[in-house]
């Protein structure tokens, strides 16, 4: 409520009151909310015919599924009626999923956040953080009051405790132009980052030895090129469930062209069902398998020797005594930057060579140079791989020897190959070693820089980035200290090195989704005096907030968006104004900026900002965006890794002489150095200390019914996927006297949850699974994050969601009757109860 509105409503109420008291002055005298059309000037949202013409609004979906799907929204009489996939300018990227076409139920969810609110027990002078939680009560406040409070709290917090006590948190829940990044640079403070903390294992392992990519999935050939693959290994990803709207179809194209599809997964998934060869691996044994495949490749000499000589440091000479690379200056007075010493087989002399240089270099062998014993890096790798005979690994990993060999053989000998991991293997504590292992495996088979090579389950496109000028880096902005998520917890708990006091959170339902060991976070957050949260829905995370800001649904905003995963720049036309008092995030940011003296950096009208983007980018015109919804960017299918690698040598370091030493649970105190891939395991290890007490490994896979925790509150989807369940093999269930459909207690020494058991013949005995993304209120008791440790390893620094062991037992009788089994589930469960 703005002040104006308050005045208006007060006047209206008095008018109505007067009517009730003194009699009806006229036909319309009882009206306050309604008014005669002739007084309203231009009729707004006038209902004409219900069968009126559809207006097709071009817009776009924008969660973190990487689909970047352009959508058509059909609006009739001012209301959104349905959503369809839009045919974009680059039409082969027409896409959209069950979730995208369910948006009408997100926009019109009766439990959307409607008005700004503050926790009733919170006040600037007496924040009472202990009163947060399930029982917290809220009261509606006006936008001006809410923004005043946020701005004042930022000011006071900075004044009292210094700028680093202002903590900015953003998840990945929404794409769009909000000005969030701009504002935080103008205001200062600290920020958190996925780097490190969440899903940063596989990518960093790959990056360490290739110098390519970051901590998430590495670059890969664009999807149009996937059809050229001869072998595809989907490793720990259910792409046909989690990315079926976009990347899965290209896999089928490859298959139709004759590619062999291998799926490595402990669960018989939608994706495993499509495989020519399914490797039902035991949880945590992925690096073992990669090494066994390398073993096969060495033994059968089916490695790509040309590639190894030219583009990797396989021929680099390594000192036998300390494992370091032989010093180039001992061979050449003027060695090239990053040059490696190799043994020239023709001259039997050591040479120093730079990047991208092949030649008759020995791949194996031992020599003594200047009295120093050396061997090749590849020899060290081969020695490591020799420890992982397929027969042994088959036993450890629960696989057949023949299948291991077939997978390796297909990858090495059938032509262009690809390995498509996702983030799952990185959800083990030491999952980065798998990143190193598969990057190394693909180096052996020469699968970089060729048509048909695939290195990740989703491709990235650089072209459709928006050219936003200085929008992301405003003049006068400061850079903020960044802490990985795994560090934030200790900041909150220990105040070291800084103690956050004020938190602005957006695009995120971390307490409902990606913060392991939930109780620890809830306690740690009591050190915050003020928590401000912007969202479309009331999530388990906004329940912890002191000030709640209702954000607009995507269809209620106007925006211009790049696309990371297909060559279309997308336009969002506004389907209608935000409902109730929800607001575009931009207006929230601009409102705070104005109050903090940065109003000049945020034009009143967001359109002005978008206009700058469009004017700034030769490829774009408003006309084209509005007409088509998308603008195709000029990109031809690209092959990744055609140039020198980003490592110091420009080569893939199949032998990493500069390897870090990993330390953490299950490892010797001195740690393990990772020159070559070494399978490291924590809780999945066969000899893990608590494995008898907690024998089952607990995984939380992505499902096709949610993107992270979004869409959990959509009735159409809840009709099919009603409640959190535990996939459990009937064998494991029967051992525990658990019948199909009974409620079970899943627990370990950290926490527990109660969910319904779902017999699944396709899940490996010894493994259980609850799909991720359920909200706290969806559980009969507890939450799937409760049993998961928030501990991270020295090198990995990544939350290990799947590195979790639990025991499962039939839940107590009182839980067998609950919100899902009672006749009237309204309010706690069922389709409309919310929860994301």
């Amino acid at each position, binding site marked *: 409520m703005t002040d104006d509105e308050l005045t208006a409503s007060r006047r209206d109420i008095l008018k109505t*009151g007067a009517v009730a008291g*003194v009699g009806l002055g006229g036909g319309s005298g009882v009206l306050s909310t309604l008014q005669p*059309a002739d007084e309203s000037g231009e009729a707004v*949202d006038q209902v004409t015919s219900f069968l009126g013409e559809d207006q097709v609004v071009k817009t776009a979906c924008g969660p973190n599924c990487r689909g970047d799907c352009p959508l058509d929204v059909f609006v009739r009489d001012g209301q959104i009626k349905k959503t369809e996939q839009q045919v974009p300018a680059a039409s082969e990227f027409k896409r959209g999923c069950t979730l995208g076409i369910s948006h009408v139920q997100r926009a019109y969810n009766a439990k959307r956040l*409607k008005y700004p609110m503050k926790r009733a027990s919170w006040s600037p002078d007496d924040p009472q953080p202990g009163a947060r939680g399930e029982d917290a009560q809220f009261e509606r406040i006006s936008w001006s009051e809410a923004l005043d409070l946020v701005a004042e709290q930022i000011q006071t917090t900075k004044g009292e405790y210094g700028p680093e006590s202002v903590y900015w948190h953003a998840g990945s829940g929404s794409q769009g132009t909000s000005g969030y990044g701009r504002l935080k640079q103008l205001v200062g403070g600290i920020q958190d980052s996925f780097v490190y903390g969440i899903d940063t294992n596989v990518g960093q392992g790959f990056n360490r030895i290739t110098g390519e990519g970051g901590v998430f999935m590495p670059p890969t050939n664009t999807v149009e090129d996937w059809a050229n693959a001869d072998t595809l290994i989907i490793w720990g990803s259910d792409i046909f469930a989690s990315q079926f709207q976009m990347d899965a179809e290209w896999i089928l194209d490859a298959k139709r062209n004759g590619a062999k599809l291998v799926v490595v997964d402990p669960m018989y998934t939608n994706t495993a069902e499509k495989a020519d060869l399914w490797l039902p691996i035991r949880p945590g044994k992925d690096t073992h398998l990669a090494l066994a495949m390398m073993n096969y490749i060495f033994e059968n000499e089916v490695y790509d020797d040309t590639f190894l000589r030219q583009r990797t440091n396989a021929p680099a000479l390594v000192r036998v005594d300390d494992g370091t690379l032989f010093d180039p200056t001992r061979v050449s007075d003027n060695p090239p930057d990053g040059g490696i010493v190799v043994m020239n087989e023709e001259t039997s002399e050591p040479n120093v060579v730079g990047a991208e240089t092949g030649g008759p270099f020995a791949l194996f062998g031992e020599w003594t140079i200047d009295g120093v014993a050396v061997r090749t890096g590849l020899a060290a790798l081969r020695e490591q791989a020799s420890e992982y005979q397929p027969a042994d690994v088959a036993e450890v990993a629960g696989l057949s020897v023949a299948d291991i060999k077939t997978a390796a053989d297909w990858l090495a000998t059938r032509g262009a190959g690809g390995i498509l991991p996702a983030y799952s293997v990185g959800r083990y504590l030491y999952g980065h070693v798998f990143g190193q292992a598969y990057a190394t495996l693909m180096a052996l088979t020469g699968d970089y820089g060729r048509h048909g090579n695939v290195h990740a389950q989703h491709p990235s496109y650089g072209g459709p980035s928006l050219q936003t000028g200085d929008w992301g880096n405003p003049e006068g902005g400061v850079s903020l200290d960044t802490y990985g998520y795994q560090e934030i917890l200790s900041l909150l708990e220990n105040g070291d090195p800084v103690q956050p006091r004020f938190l602005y959170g957006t695009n995120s339902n971390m307490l409902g989704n990606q913060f392991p060991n939930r109780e620890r976070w809830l306690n740690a957050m009591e050190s915050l005096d003020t928590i401000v949260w912007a969202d479309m829905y009331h999530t388990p995370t*906004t329940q912890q907030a002191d000030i709640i800001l209702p954000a607009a649904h995507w269809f209620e905003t106007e925006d211009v968006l790049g696309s990371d995963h297909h060559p279309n720049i997308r336009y969002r036309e506004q389907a209608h104004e935000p409902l109730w008092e929800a607001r575009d995030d931009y207006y929230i940011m601009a409102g705070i900026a104005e109050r903090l003296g940065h109003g000049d950096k945020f034009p009143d009208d967001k359109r002005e900002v978008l206009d700058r983007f469009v004017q700034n980018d030769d490829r774009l015109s408003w006309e084209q965006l509005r007409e088509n919804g998308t603008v195709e960017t000029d990109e031809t299918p690209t092959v990744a890794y055609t140039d020198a690698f980003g490592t110091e040598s420009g080569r893939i370091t199949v032998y990493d002489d500069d390897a870090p030493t990993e330390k953490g649970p299950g490892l010797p105190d001195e740690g393990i150095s990772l020159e070559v891939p070494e399978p490291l395991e924590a809780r999945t290890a066969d000899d893990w200390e608590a494995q008898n007490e907690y024998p089952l490994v607990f995984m939380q896979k992505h499902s096709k019914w949610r993107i992270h925790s979004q869409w959990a509150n959509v009735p159409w989807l809840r009709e099919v996927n009603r409640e959190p369940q535990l996939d459990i093999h009937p064998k494991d269930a029967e051992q525990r006297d658990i019948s199909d459909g009974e409620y079970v207690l899943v627990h370990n020494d950290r926490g527990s949850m109660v969910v319904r058991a779902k017999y699944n013949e396709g899940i490996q005995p010894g493994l259980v699974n609850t799909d991720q993304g359920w909200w706290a209120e969806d559980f009969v008791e507890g939450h799937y994050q409760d049993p998961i440790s928030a501990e991270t390893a020295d090198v990995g620094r990544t939350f290990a969601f799947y590195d979790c062991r639990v025991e499962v037992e039939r839940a107590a009788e009182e839980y067998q009757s609950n919100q899902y089994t009672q006749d009237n589930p*309204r309010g706690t469960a069922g389709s409309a109860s919310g929860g994301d």
Partner: protein
Amino acid sequence: MTENTPTATDHSTGDPRPSIADTFGTLAVCWREPSEGWVDAIESGRFEWLDGVETFGDLDELRVEYTRLFIGPGRDQCPPYESVYRDGADSDDLGPVYGPTTQAVARWYDEYDLRLRDSRSAPPDHIATELEFAAYLSANEDDSVLEQFLNEHLREWVDQFVAHLRENDPGPFYRALIRRTTEAINS
């Protein structure tokens, strides 16, 4: 105004029975969010006939209660919109806002050339807006029209709405309001 427009309550003569339009008009006010102006209206004594409405107590507390029951954000909320109780997949689930019944209500308003003062702030099938419209109909149209509107709308959902509300522990003011509202629309 038609011939048989009900007359207003005449407090000076002490007639305790308000007109139907007054009743619905007053109920509409009571279902709006409490504010200072709202308190003034309630305290003016004009609503005395509405037993229990003066039991609202402290305004701040009532606003917290109103937020909890009708705005959210938590699980206790009972969104006061018709479509939520009529357009869901089944009667046990909360349906959407802006459902087909919302359209149907909007058509009634349209038929009488009435518009929402602020069309975007809330869907038109808010209980207060429907009651206000019922007041308008009773002031301006034959009883049969009001009956038709009540039958097509308020009587179709208010029982479910208040049942849901009762499950979420309303205080004395809203308990009284529920009682008076269901009496009014069902009489």
